[in-house]
Every structure is written in structure tokens, then in C-alpha cells.
């Protein structure tokens, strides 16, 4: 089971140029709005046409600009879930779910009833989308595309239409329901949480090109490029130069030491929970002044700046509320950096 995509398309403001292939596991595509992730899905589905390239799904060529192949969406056997679900407002939940099934009326009814049971939509048969809750609509949309067992599922920001309140609960629920489908899933989202929970593999997309690709957990735990660090949410990133066997971070004015400094070391990234307040100077410790304290729900975000006179970028780190409240001297701090990413 695999999907190979290699396409180019001129788009408003930038050019889409993506190249990737899947290996049977779920693939998440993480990118900001307008980065081209939805467009990629639409090209795979066939509702948009690239300018050139090739798309192959399970060894069937869906699109090949050189050979003039462009199979219409109706024949691509893919399942596409739209951001706003695109449920047909003039059809009931039952009719919506059955719309992609090519069966006799009787068989269709049996199959849709079965699906409605599995998707916990019993009793909703005669309801119209406008009468369903957000979560129910989402389940109808998912049931609709799983019903005819397509070769791949393309999910376009499946949670963006829901309240954040519900999201968490629905994530697990949704994952369970997805297991009812036996094929590959591509999920496109701007949410790091979603992509972390849903997909084993991760592709990062920025301004139309893929800037990172690999196993999701690995990328989040140890980003290796500037792009990976930024997109996995690392707030503290600085340019750096290697002098004297030390890594000098120019944006913050601090020098870091480590055992093996690799060749390609252009940036340093420090996750916000890798800081510690200490009492004296030491390796990878520096003195800083307090700029701001932001109270979050479960912790504080402390904003600090280097205290050596020159203008530097602020650094953000998280700290347990109790620990901070118990810290005596707050204006002048010694901060130790416990671990950091070396980025290309």
C-alpha cells in the first residue's frame, strides 16, 4: 500500500512543489494556513489539477503530466474529508452516508445502518446535517468516506471546525473510528497536537515545499533543522557561530559548550522546559534579567533577557508555579540550560 506524489503547481503567491511517498502508516502534513497543504490533498483527490508531475496510488497512475493521464476524481477511489465536512444539507444523515455506495437500495440500507451503529449515530437516520451537533457531523462525514472502502483517506483539517473544548475528547474517539478503515490515511493540519497524536510519519510544509520529513516522534523529540524546530513549536531559536570550540548564540549573547560539535551547526534551539534556576555561575549558565512573567493555566512562562548590556532577543521558559513562587531573588537570575538542539 503506498501513495507516491510528485507535483508542481503555481499558486497564489508561491509555487507548490512537493515530493513524498507513504509506506502504509498514517502520514501527517503539518503547515500553516496557506502553505499549500490543502491544495496538495485536492490534487491527490483530482478536484484540482497540478501543472505537472505524477501521482500514483497503490500502483495505479492517477495523474501523469508526461503521459497525459488525469483520472477524474469520480474514478480515483479516494475518500476526502473536507474541513467543514461538506455534508449535503438537503440529504439526511443516512442518505449522506450512503451516497458513495454503489449497491442496490436494500443492500445500501443494510450497510448504512451498520455504519451508523458503528459510528454511534443510531437514531439520527432521518436528521439533516443542520440538526446534528459538530461531533455528530464529523462522524457522519467520516462514515461517508469509509463506507465505500477507498484506497486512501485524505483528511483536511478534520478538527478545525470544532470547539477546542470538544477536541481532546474527540481525538481518541476519532482515532478509534479510523481503525475501522484498513488503508492509508493522510491528515493535513496546522495543529501540532493533532499531528503528534494521529500520525506515525510527518511531513512539514512551508510556502509550498516540504521542509522536513520523517518519523513524527523523532522530529518532535529531536528536531534537526531550523524548520523542524520552528514547526514543532520550539520558541527559542538563535543563530550561532562556532568560535573557540564553543557555540556562540548571537541572538542571545551566550556561549554554549558541548562535547561533539557537529559540522553543520547554524542554529541553536532550546525547548522551553530545559531551563533551571541555579544559584551560581557554571557551564551553560548565564545571568539574565527578568522581563515578564506570564501566568498560564498550569504554570508560568518566564520571559528573560541576557544581562550583559547588549540588546538581545528574549527567551521563554516554563516553570512550575510553586517553584517560582518559592524563588527568592527574581529580578536577577542565573539560568542553566540543560539541553539544546543543534540545528542545520
Amino acid at each position: 500500500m503506498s501513495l507516491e506524489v510528485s507535483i508542481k503547481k503555481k499558486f497564489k503567491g508561491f509555487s507548490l512543489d512537493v515530493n513524498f511517498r507513504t509506506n502504509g502508516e498514517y502520514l501527517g502534513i503539518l503547515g500553516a494556513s496557506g502553505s499549500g497543504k490543502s491544495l496538495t490533498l485536492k490534487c491527490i483527490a483530482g478536484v484540482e489539477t497540478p501543472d505537472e508531475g505524477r501521482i500514483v496510488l497503490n500502483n495505479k497512475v492517477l495523474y501523469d503530466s508526461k503521459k497525459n493521464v488525469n483520472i477524474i476524481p469520480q474514478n480515483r477511489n479516494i475518500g476526502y474529508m473536507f474541513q467543514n465536512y461538506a455534508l449535503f444539507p438537503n440529504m439526511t444523515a443516512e442518505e449522506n452516508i450512503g451516497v458513495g455506495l454503489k449497491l442496490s437500495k436494500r443492500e445500501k440500507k443494510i450497510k448504512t445502518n451498520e455504519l451508523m451503529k458503528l459510528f454511534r449515530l443510531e437514531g439520527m437516520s432521518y436528521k439533516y446535517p443542520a440538526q446534528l451537533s459538530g461531533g455528530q457531523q464529523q462522524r457522519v462525514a467520516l462514515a461517508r468516506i469509509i463506507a465505500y472502502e477507498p484506497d486512501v483517506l485524505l483528511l483536511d483539517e478534520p478538527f478545525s471546525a470544532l470547539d477546542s473544548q470538544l477536541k481532546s475528547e474527540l481525538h481518541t474517539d476519532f482515532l478509534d473510528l479510523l481503525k475501522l478503515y484498513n488503508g492509508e490515511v493522510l491528515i493535513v493540519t496546522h495543529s501540532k497536537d493533532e499531528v503528534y497524536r494521529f500520525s506515525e510519519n510527518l511531513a512539514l510544509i512551508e510556502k509550498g515545499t516540504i521542509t522536513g520529513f520523517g518519523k513524527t516522534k523523532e522530529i518532535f523529540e529531536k528536531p534537526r533543522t531550523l524548520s523542524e524546530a520552528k514547526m514543532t513549536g520550539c520558541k527559542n531559536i538563535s543563530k550561532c557561530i562556532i568560535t573557540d570550540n564553543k557555540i556562540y548564540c548571537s541572538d542571545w549573547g551566550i556561549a554554549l559548550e558541548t562535547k561533539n560539535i557537529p559540522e553543520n551547526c547554524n542554529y541553536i534551539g532550546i525547548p522551553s522546559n530545559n531551563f533551571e534556576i541555579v544559584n551560581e555561575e557554571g557551564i551553560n549558565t548565564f545571568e539574565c534579567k527578568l522581563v515578564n512573567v506570564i501566568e498560564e493555566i498550569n504554570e508560568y512562562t518566564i520571559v528573560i533577557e541576557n544581562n550583559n548590556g547588549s540588546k538581545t532577543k528574549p527567551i521563554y521558559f516554563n516553570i512550575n508555579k510553586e517553584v517560582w513562587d518559592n524563588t527568592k531573588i527574581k529580578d536577577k537570575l542565573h539560568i542553566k540550560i540543560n539541553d539544546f538542539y543543534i540545528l542545520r
Partner: protein
Amino acid sequence: MDWSPMLISLKTASVSIIITFFIGILAAKSVVGMKSDKVRIVIDGLLTLPLVLPPTVLGFFILLILGVKRPLGKFLLDFFSVKIVFSWTATVIAAVVVSFPLMYRSARGAFEQVDKNLIMAGRTLGMSERKIFWRVTMPLALPGIASGGVLAFARALGEFGATAMVAGNIANKTRTLPLAIYAEVAAGNMEGSYGYVAVVVIISFVVLSLMNYFTIKGSKYNNKDELK
């Protein structure tokens, strides 16, 4: 009061709305589906033209095509003994020409209002273009189309300028309600027009109410209270 103008007007408007309904929807469907923006703008302009041209100009163009001295009109007269001008058919032609843009624009607006994602979804779900049109686009566009149809009917009923030019003003044959009203007023006979004017006002009011009804009905699928 002589009821014949009213009957003629109703007959003319009824026949013309049937014609306009189909060609209006057909034209709207083609224009919405056009790939090239430039072509679409030009065709849309041409199809909307009768809306902004004075009815007498429209009458002029109709005469240009169907008048007995013109190639087509002469041909019909010589070979089929059919004279379109000054016949009841001409009232229908005039009515169709002036009301067509209203039907076309309403239908076009209604089609464009349909969420494009729904059409894309239909395609990915394996629905043929035809099935998408009849099961998704049309049902959702119907209220807007119906509203346009009602408007077109009212316009056909009130058509005057082009009708006088191509159909003349023959009692019991082509003297429509607006022509009758105009003749009464021109003769200084205001009293004679009261009846006709009352009829026109009542029909117009009914038309507007129907339009509003269809518009409200149109939001039915988006409103959960409406669906209960």
C-alpha cells in the same frame, strides 16, 4: 370591464415563463460551468443586455429579425404563410426577451451560491456530474430559481414597449393589460383603468410575497428550527 386584456396577458406570461424557465436555467448552468473567465464575462454581458436596454430598443431588434421585410420574417411568410409580427406569438416573444435576463441572473446567482466544496465532495464520492447537478446543485438552488421565475413572470406580465412594436395593439388578440391601461389613460379615461390597475397591483403583490416565501424556504436546510 373588458376582461380580454387580462386573459391575454396571463396567457402570454404563462407561456413565456415556461420557455424562459428552461432557457434561463440552461444558460445559467453553461455560464457557471465555463472555464475561461473572459468568455464568461462576455457571454454574461450579452445575456444580461435585455435587462438594461429600453424595451423599445428590444422591440427594434426583434423586428430586425422577424419583421416581414427581413430575411427570416420574409422566409416564414413566403413559405409557411406565417406572419409572426402582429400575432399573439409576438407578444410571447417580446415577453421572453425582456424577462429572460431576470430568470438567467437569478438562476446563475442561485447556482453560484451552492458551496463549491459540496460539488467537489460529490466528485470525490464518485457522483457523476449529472447526478451532482440533479441531487445537489438543483435542490439547493431551487428556491433562488423559483424566486427568479416569479420575478420573470411578473416582468412578462408588465411588458409594454417591445410588445407594442412587434405585436401591435389588436383587441382580443395582442392587446395586453399594459397596452389597455395605456390606451385608457391616453384617452383621458382614468376611470376605465381602475379595474386593470387594481388587477396589476394585486398580481404584483402576490408575486412579491411568493418571492419572499421562496427566499425564506431556501434557508430551510441551514436552519435547524425550520427542519423540525
